[in-house]
């Protein structure tokens, strides 16, 4: 499974990723295509993605800020409204007490029936009152209306009594007292006509206050409660402590106005806290109104939106990277292929140049050898003539034999120099119309017997689209004969030899001679057209066969190339123009000849 996956991955890899043409390396413009590919993808990705990221971050921050300020505004509004309600609640009751002491004289207040009547009326008008009591300037409770029996109780030592005497009004914290019920005490000081003073005190239930506060609570992540200035919970809270416990939030700094701050609570959750120090027009109170909203909960909608945006941005990034990767791969591969084509052309050109210079050298050598060779020839010939013609030497067979050796050697040298010259010199080219089928048949006639004897299968496939071509029949025949002879030497008995011809474009034909014989190693491929290069045994080949073939193909204005794999076979491809005359004319014009 993993093997198959790797195979699939391998086939998807672009050509430059596993370049095989090591021998072309010196001709490449760029060496490390993988690096170009990597750097290209990285730079393009950074250029494309950076603005997207920056814009996304800026957008997030803007949204965050706007959501924060919206949250702060809403919290502040709730805190402000709740403060007004709590202030009104206390102020209304304080005013009721003040009205009572101003309106009703001390005598009536201390009359138990009238006092009980007053409590009833106040309960009806305002509600939430538990009891009423009148306390003399000495701190003794002189009248009481309510469910308990507290007449005669002495308050002179209590702190609230001293404070009320000083400030004329008093609002207590919420406390349990000996009734063991949470309640608030409010008290008003008043003067009697004789100059002494007394205090009218009322006990308020906290139920109503808690209900009023609850009505301002918004959502499950919000909390609203009262705390004392010393940080004791005055009403129960959902998150920050029960009644009379220590508040789980720090006590805020005093401010006469409603304030909102952003901070983290005891558990590290970011919260927005709105607070107000409750103060009525008549008296200051010990209460701080606290409104909290947990940011995480309040930002649910925004977080959902952000998650959608994140998905969208993530998807976009993925698409961008895929497109960049595909584009980069395509472009770098194109670049690589173009570079490879150039490198191949340069390699071929260099080989041609090499062959041309070797050819020139060979021609020079051949020319220089020819003159002394001619002299040896004539001298030896003359000596032989003397022996043959003059009677006195004619019987000396050994001398004759030796001279024949000289002449034979000269003849061999002559053959070699002629072949060398054949490579560089242009023989006359006799152009005629040639039928490829016939030429190939003629060539194969030479090998018919051998093919039969060695059981070599020769397949000839000449495309019907190939017209008669204008070329030099003799040279073409020699070229094909050389290549077919080579192929016959390369294949074992029972192997195949394919000769195919196809039109190439409008003006060319290509002839392929392909065998499945012994092939040759890659390092030999670039040398096979060089003169004197041979893989045959010493003395069996001159190493000029393919050199001459190359020269002949060039003379026919064609090209010859070779592909080979050791033990798999060799393929020679010859490309020839259909109209040689035209090509030669073009050539002459371009060289100004």
């Amino acid at each position, binding site marked *: 499974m993993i093997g198959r996956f790797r195979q699939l991955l391998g086939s998807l890899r672009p050509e430059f990723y596993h370049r095989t043409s090591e021998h072309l390396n010196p001709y490449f413009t760029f060496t490390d295509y993988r690096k170009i590919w990597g750097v290209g993808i990285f730079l393009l990705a950074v250029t494309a993605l950076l603005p997207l990221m920056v814009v996304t971050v800026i957008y997030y921050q803007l949204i965050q800020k706007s959501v924060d300020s919206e949250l702060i505004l809403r919290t502040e509004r709730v805190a402000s409204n709740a403060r007004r309600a709590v202030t009104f609640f206390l102020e209304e009751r304080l005013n009721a007490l003040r009205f009572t002491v101003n309106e009703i004289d001390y005598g009536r207040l201390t009359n138990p029936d009238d006092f009980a009547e007053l409590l009833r009326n106040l309960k009806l008008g305002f509600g939430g009152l538990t009891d009423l009591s009148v306390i003399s300037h000495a701190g003794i409770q002189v009248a009481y209306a309510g469910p308990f029996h507290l007449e005669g109780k002495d308050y002179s030592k209590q702190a609230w009594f001293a404070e009320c005497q000083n400030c004329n009004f008093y609002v207590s914290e919420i406390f349990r007292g000996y009734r063991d019920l949470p309640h608030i005490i409010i008290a008003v000081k008043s003067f009697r006509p004789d100059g002494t003073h007394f205090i009218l005190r009322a006990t308020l239930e906290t139920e109503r206050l808690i209900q009023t506060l609850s009505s301002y609570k918004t959502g499950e992540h919000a909390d609203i409660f009262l705390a004392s200035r010393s940080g004791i919970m005055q009403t129960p809270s959902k998150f920050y402590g029960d009644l009379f416990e220590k508040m789980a939030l720090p006590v805020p700094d005093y401010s006469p106005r409603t304030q909102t701050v952003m901070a983290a609570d005891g558990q590290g959750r970011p919260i927005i806290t709105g607070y107000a120090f409750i103060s009525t027009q008549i008296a200051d109170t010990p209460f701080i109104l606290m409104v909290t909203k947990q940011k995480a909960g309040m930002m649910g909608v925004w977080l959902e939106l952000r998650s959608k945006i994140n998905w969208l941005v993530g998807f976009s990034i993925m698409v961008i990277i895929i497109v960049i990767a595909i584009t980069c791969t395509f472009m770098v591969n194109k670049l690589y292929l173009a570079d490879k084509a150039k490198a191949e052309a340069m390699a071929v050109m260099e080989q041609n140049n090499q062959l041309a210079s070797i050819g020139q050298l060979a021609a020079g050598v051949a*020319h*220089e050898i*020819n*003159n002394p*060779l*001619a*002299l*040896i*020839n*004539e*001298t030896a*010939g*003359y000596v032989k*003539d*003397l022996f043959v*013609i003059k009677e006195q030497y004619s019987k000396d067979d050994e001398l004759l034999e030796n001279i024949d050796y000289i002449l034979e050697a*000269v003849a061999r040298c*002559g053959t070699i120099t*002629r072949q060398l*010259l054949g490579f560089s*010199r*242009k*023989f*006359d080219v006799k152009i005629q119309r040639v039928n490829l089928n016939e030429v190939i048949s003629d060539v194969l006639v030479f090998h018919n017997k051998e093919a039969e004897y060695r059981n070599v299968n020769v397949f000839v496939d000449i495309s019907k689209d190939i017209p008669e071509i204008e070329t030099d029949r003799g040279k073409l025949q020699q070229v094909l004969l050389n290549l077919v002879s080579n192929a016959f030497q390369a294949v074992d008995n029972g192997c195949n030899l394919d000769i195919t011809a196809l039109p190439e474009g409008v003006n060319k034909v290509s002839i392929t001679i392909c065998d499945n014989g012994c092939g040759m190693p890659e390092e030999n491929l670039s040398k096979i057209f060089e003169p004197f290069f041979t893989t045959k045994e010493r003395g069996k080949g001159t190493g000029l066969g393919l050199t001459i073939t190359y020269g002949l193909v060039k003379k026919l204005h064609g090209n010859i190339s070779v592909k080979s794999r050791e033990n798999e076979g060799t393929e020679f491809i010859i490309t020839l123009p259909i109209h040689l005359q035209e090509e030669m004319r073009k050539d002459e014009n371009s060289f100004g000849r």
Partner: protein
Amino acid sequence: MKQYNLLIVDDEQRFADMLARRLNLRGCNCEVCYSGREALNILKQKKMHLILLDLYLPDIYGTEVLTRIRKNDERTPVIIVTGHGTEKDRRECMQRGAYAFMHKPVGIDELMTILAEIGEKSA
């Protein structure tokens, strides 16, 4: 066999001499000269059956010698014998009326065959 008058023009003196000796042994009557001018002078005085002409001569290039020979005499066959001949030379010489273009070293038998051929034609 008819005796042929031959002129061998080659700056390689020993080659020319040797070739002359061998042809003489085969019944020819060879004259040898080593430059183009000499050759033209001899040709003014004597009629030849065949001229063997080198291309790289010290004074006048072989093709030019051939042209000058052809000015006065259109018939005498001229065989170019050279060690340096290029295809261009060959074409030029054939255009200017050479009978054959041969590369050194030249086979004596080949030469004799050509001579016999010329003899047949002129007979």
